[in-house]
């Protein structure tokens, strides 16, 4: 067993920042991560970090833009904290040597981004995320913070009092991918989940293969609510074979979208008569899919993004990296042929419910980054707002877990008096557990029925034993179902039915397929017999997490019968402020999801944000 004050699970932008902050606060901190830190998906972010650092800009404008962008589903205390802390936390990165792009006068550069009233997106070339990730990892090396890399966290050691608000977290169970040994990691002060997004729940995504929602699923099964999971952002221009993102820059420079018949459909089919290709992400994504659904897609799958008319010189000057992307990942030469593109899953707005300090309703359990939902992004994330979220809330979670006083949070967590229950979910099948094998292994109440809470060591040991048993079972199952088959079925269902177009029937269909996946998962087996670097085993674990997370996305999409931000419902074409200024919360109660709602907080420090029509 390993023991530290603070255990950070995940070493992307959020995890690294949390670890540095906890270390600076004097804690003995360790990171446990399934990928080496520099391999985390934060490295893929291109655009930049929103921070109000210049004259003429201020945090209140940033907060206002973010609230409006969220379609009034972000919580004001979270949004204001983000906007207030981002300037200092961004400059800290500069002080750590991050190679930001520079202006003539030597100051760091900022660029305009969609939905922002001031060009406050601070960037480092077209690879801001790469530099942010590497700069913070360098600081982790400098501080000598312990990193257990290529250790896969399988479960949390959380007690199991009936009310999740009474539970506490004492560590994690992980296995060393290289050797296969399973170990407990005891956390004396706190566990911080920073495991990133669940993009792999969809079969076409800009997210890495490692983005499997592990932290969300583990927190969910430990009783922590997942919040607003139905809000998933899709990006309209991703390469069909890989999901690699082609930035808006191409359309910004004048790139044109054509269907199979060579029609410039954004105009010719009237999707956006004013803005055409430059309409907002969701509008372009829906237009593309409509073309494909109506038979005007190329190969029945995608549309063409053409930039040839811009001329070689201009393309080489401004869009050279796009040429490389198309060439390397799609085998297409953007100078001589149009590039195929289609919408892809890009970002999960929802996540593990936390307050402004990163704390969840379970004592000692924190979350930060894309896996968490504070909630800053509400129904729609603005570009450039995820990276500041990593550093602002990663830092706060790290400090709080290490015992620093940050002041009481205004955002409430866990089921409480301020919530409203959903009585009629209307799911077509029973969601949640299927079969007996899946019973939650971690349980912190003594088995002797005395009702006594076990010592933290015992909670952890029990959780470790449960995972050892699970692994033995998975490895011993001969002729089991291959997780890859279940995963691809799940991904297809999500992409077919819980995509940019959502209908009630479609979402129900997805829930039925998810149920089938659960049933098939009861017979899953790991066929690689080796304990050495068994990725078959790891992916089998991840697939289970994807099933749980996908189900919460679909359930949220089913109950929210309005159109807000990224959540489009065919039957409900308006934003319904009367009934829906509230967060969707899903909790795992003894294996069956229950849904309830918590009102959104629109009261800021000094003002209340009035929901307005979102027009740009």
């Amino acid at each position, binding site marked *: 067993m390993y023991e530290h004050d603070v255990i950070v699970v995940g070493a992307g932008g959020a995890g690294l920042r949390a670890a540095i902050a906890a270390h600076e606060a004097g804690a003995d901190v360790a990171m446990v991560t399934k*990928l*080496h830190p*520099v*391999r*985390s*998906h934060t*490295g*893929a972010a291109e655009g930049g970090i929103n921070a109000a650092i210049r004259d003429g800009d201020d945090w209140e404008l940033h907060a206002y833009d973010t609230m*409006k962008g969220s*379609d009034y589903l972000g919580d004001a205390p979270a949004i204001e904290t983000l906007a207030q802390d981002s300037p200092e936390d961004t*400059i800290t990165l500069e*002080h750590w*040597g991050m*190679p930001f792009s*520079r202006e003539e006068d030597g100051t760091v550069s900022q660029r*305009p981004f*969609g*939905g922002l009233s001031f060009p406050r997106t601070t960037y480092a070339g*077209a*690879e801001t995320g*790469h530099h942010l990730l*590497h700069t913070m990892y360098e600081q982790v090396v400098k501080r000598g913070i312990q990193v257990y890399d290529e250790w896969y966290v399988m479960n949390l050691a959380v007690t199991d009092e009936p009310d999740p608000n009474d539970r506490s977290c004492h560590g994690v169970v992980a296995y060393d991918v290289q050797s296969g040994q399973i170990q407990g990691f005891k956390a004396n002060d706190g566990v911080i989940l920073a495991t990133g997004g669940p993009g792999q729940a969809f079969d076409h995504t800009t997210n*890495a*293969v490692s983005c499997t929602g592990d932290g969300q699923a583990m927190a969910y099964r430990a009783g922590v609510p997942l919040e607003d999971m139905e809000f998933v952002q899709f990006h309209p221009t991703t390469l069909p*074979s*890989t999901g690699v993102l082609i*930035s808006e*820059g191409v359309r*910004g420079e004048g790139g044109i979208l054509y269907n199979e018949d060579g029609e410039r459909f954004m105009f010719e*089919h*009237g*999707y956006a008569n004013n803005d055409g290709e*430059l309409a*907002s*992400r*969701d*509008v372009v994504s*829906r237009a593309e899919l*409509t073309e494909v*659904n109506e038979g005007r897609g190329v190969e029945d799958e995608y549309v063409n993004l053409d930039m040839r008319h811009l001329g070689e010189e201009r393309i080489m000057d401004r*869009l050279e990296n796009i040429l490389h*992307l198309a060439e*390397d*990942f*799609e085998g297409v030469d953007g100078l001589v042929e149009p590039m195929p593109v289609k919408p892809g899953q890009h970002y999960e707005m929802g996540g593990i419910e936390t307050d402004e300090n990163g704390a969840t309703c379970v004592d000692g359990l924190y979350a930060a980054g894309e896996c968490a939902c504070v909630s800053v992004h509400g129904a729609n994330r*603005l570009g450039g707002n995820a990276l500041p979220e990593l550093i602002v809330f990663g830092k706060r979670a790290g400090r709080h877990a290490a015992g620093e006083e940050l002041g009481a949070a205004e955002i409430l967590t866990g089921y409480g008096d301020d919530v409203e229950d959903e009585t009629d979910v209307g799911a077509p099948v029973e969601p949640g557990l299927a079969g007996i094998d899946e019973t939650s292994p971690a349980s912190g109440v003594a088995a002797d029925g005395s009702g006594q809470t076990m010592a933290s060591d015992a909670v952890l040991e029990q959780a470790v034993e449960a995972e050892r048993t699970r692994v033995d079972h998975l490895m011993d199952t001969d002729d089991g179902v291959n997780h*890859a088959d279940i995963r691809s079925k799940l991904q297809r269902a999500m992409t077919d039915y819980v995509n940019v177009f959502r209908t009630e029937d479609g979402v129900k269909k997805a829930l039925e397929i998810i149920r089938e996946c659960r049933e098939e998962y009861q017979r899953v087996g790991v*066929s*690689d*017999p*080796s304990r*050495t*670097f068994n*990725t078959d085993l790891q992916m089998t674990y991840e697939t289970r997490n994807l099933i749980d997370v996908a189900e919460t996305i679909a359930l949220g999409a089913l109950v929210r019968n309005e159109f807000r931000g*990224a959540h*489009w419902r*065919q039957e409900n074409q*308006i*934003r319904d402020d009367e009934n829906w200024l509230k967060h969707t919360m899903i909790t795992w109660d003894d294996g069956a999801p229950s849904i309830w709602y918590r009102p959104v907080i629109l009261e800021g420090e000094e003002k209340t944000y009035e929901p307005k*029509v979102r027009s740009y």
Partner: protein
Amino acid sequence: MSTQQEQPTDADDAGTGQADDAADAGPSPQDRRMDKKADRRIERERAAGATDADAETVHLKVFRYDPEVEGKQEPRFDDFHVPFEKGMTVLDALIYARDEFDPSLTFRHSCRQAVCGSDAFFVNGRQRLGCQTQISDLDGPVRVEPLPHQDVVKDLVVDMEHFYEQMHAVEPYFQEEDLPDGDLEEQYQTRENREKVKMSTRCIWCGACMSSCNIAAGDNEYLGPAAINKAYRFAMDDREGEELKEHRLRIMEQEHGVWRCQTQFSCTEVCPKDIPLTEHIQELKREAVKKNLKFW
């Protein structure tokens, strides 16, 4: 340069209503169109099946080894025949082989877009990122092996520990302590200086350069191109003062540092990020001489 402008969703955009109408558009001409397309597709597939099947299949020869599993303890090559699709990369083909044929086939990968540096392999005799290599650019059969000069853990997975140690050995972090007073004040850096370090900051720690280097193969303690490049990244960054620069040059000067390099350019040739590694090493040598530091 890319500007990744993320535009917000817009409930009131003119396009929304139309998209909806379009989705509900009259079924009959549409259905007919879809049917026709489906027919065409079936025909296409039939045509493909009739032609030489091999033309549509990728033949992979993949290195296999597992210290624990009988039959795999002796390294061997397995053959996989994967259906080819336009745009398919070596990584795509490996994923297909694993998911469809052999779940025990093991390799690191994550981002699929040449930013995480996980999947440097030895493909047809050269270090390349699997995700960045189009099958159509390769002669078949495609031979995939783990990076040479590194211990193999299993199949295509090599032990990266030594590579990480070398990276860590060059104090790979910004060390300037004389920072602006205000928490909101940045250090200044000229555009030229930023441009100077730009390429060096692109390294994704894939290890391809180290694996291609003959010197590193012979001298286990040689820092290697990636670590030296990391040192270059800081030594050339004007935000760190002269004293620190000298300190960094001294590290580069040590027995297993820059002077080991014999300018064979193999690292530069394989670097997936096009970092001019050999040039950077040469420049550090020149700087060291300029500073009159003793050299080996």
